[in-house]
């Protein structure tokens, strides 16, 4: 019963005549970006810092999609999100590879320990 009702529900939500403007979505994205930025500055666990970067990227993706919709359905905003997703995936792969290569032998990786790399 639910699979049959799901398209109807989704259509009922999406095809409403009056829709929320771009403003609330932009404010939400701004909040998410700020949370990610503050988290990146405050946390010291390298992996959590990386996750805060992902939060910021998601906020930017939300902004792109919002503007794509508010500019009369211009698809280029969504294309930008597509490429941001691809680049974020590649960045996570390399970033985690670097983290593993540096912190392989020590317990409790924090960003403060990176100072021992100083020559």
């Amino acid at each position: 019963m639910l699979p049959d009702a799901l398209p109807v529900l989704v259509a009922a939500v999406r095809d409403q005549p009056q829709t929320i403007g771009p403003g609330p979505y932009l404010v939400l994205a701004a909040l998410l970006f700020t949370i990610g930025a503050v988290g990146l500055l405050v946390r010291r666990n390298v992996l959590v810092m990386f996750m805060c970067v992902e939060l910021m990227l998601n906020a930017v993706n939300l902004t792109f999609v919002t503007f794509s919709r508010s500019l009369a359905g211009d698809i280029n905003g969504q294309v930008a999100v597509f490429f941001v997703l691809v680049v974020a995936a590649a960045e996570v792969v390399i970033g985690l590879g670097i983290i593993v290569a540096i912190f392989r032998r020590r317990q409790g990786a924090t960003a403060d320990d990176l100072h021992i790399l100083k020559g």
Partner: protein
Amino acid sequence: MTPVLAEVFDVGFADLVVFVVAGAVVLAGGFGVVLARNPVHAALSLITTLFGVAVLFVSQQADFLAVVQVIVYAGAIVVLFLFVIMLLGVDKEESIAAEPLKAQRPVALALGLLVLVELVFLSGIHFGSIADVESQPGITPTDPGAENVEQLARTIFTRYLYAFEVTSVLLVIAVVGAVVLARRAGVTRQRPASPSTEPVSR
């Protein structure tokens, strides 16, 4: 209360409910990532945020991106995070007491607040309902009437073809780089005195 809110903002009721619920989920996940002491909890909060953002994508008619977000971000990237967390054994809780730079936290909060105020001020000019096509001079919707996936595919493979190929190369480079980074250094070097013709194994 929500019907009153719907009237205040002059929006569809279901639209408002979806936005409020998904927005709450997104923000709860965001706070969870920043405030969780255990990195595994932070990863789970990140998954929550990603799902909330996917719902917001759907409510803005970006269906393909919502699915790709769930599959790639929540399904692959966060799993990769969890692998590395378990591999490095950093699932021990981080001590939030000691901080090398004493002023870092207050300054970070102040700067964050500044960024937030600035962004909210900039986005405040965009409040209101979605404008019609006619009222936006010079903006024509790309391929109107087509499905979301078709529009995306048509644009990516014609207008952004070069960028698409470059990102493909980027992915290959990322894979090669990951393999190189994961190799253990200094494994089995050839003995210098040995006259063996065997090549140095890496």
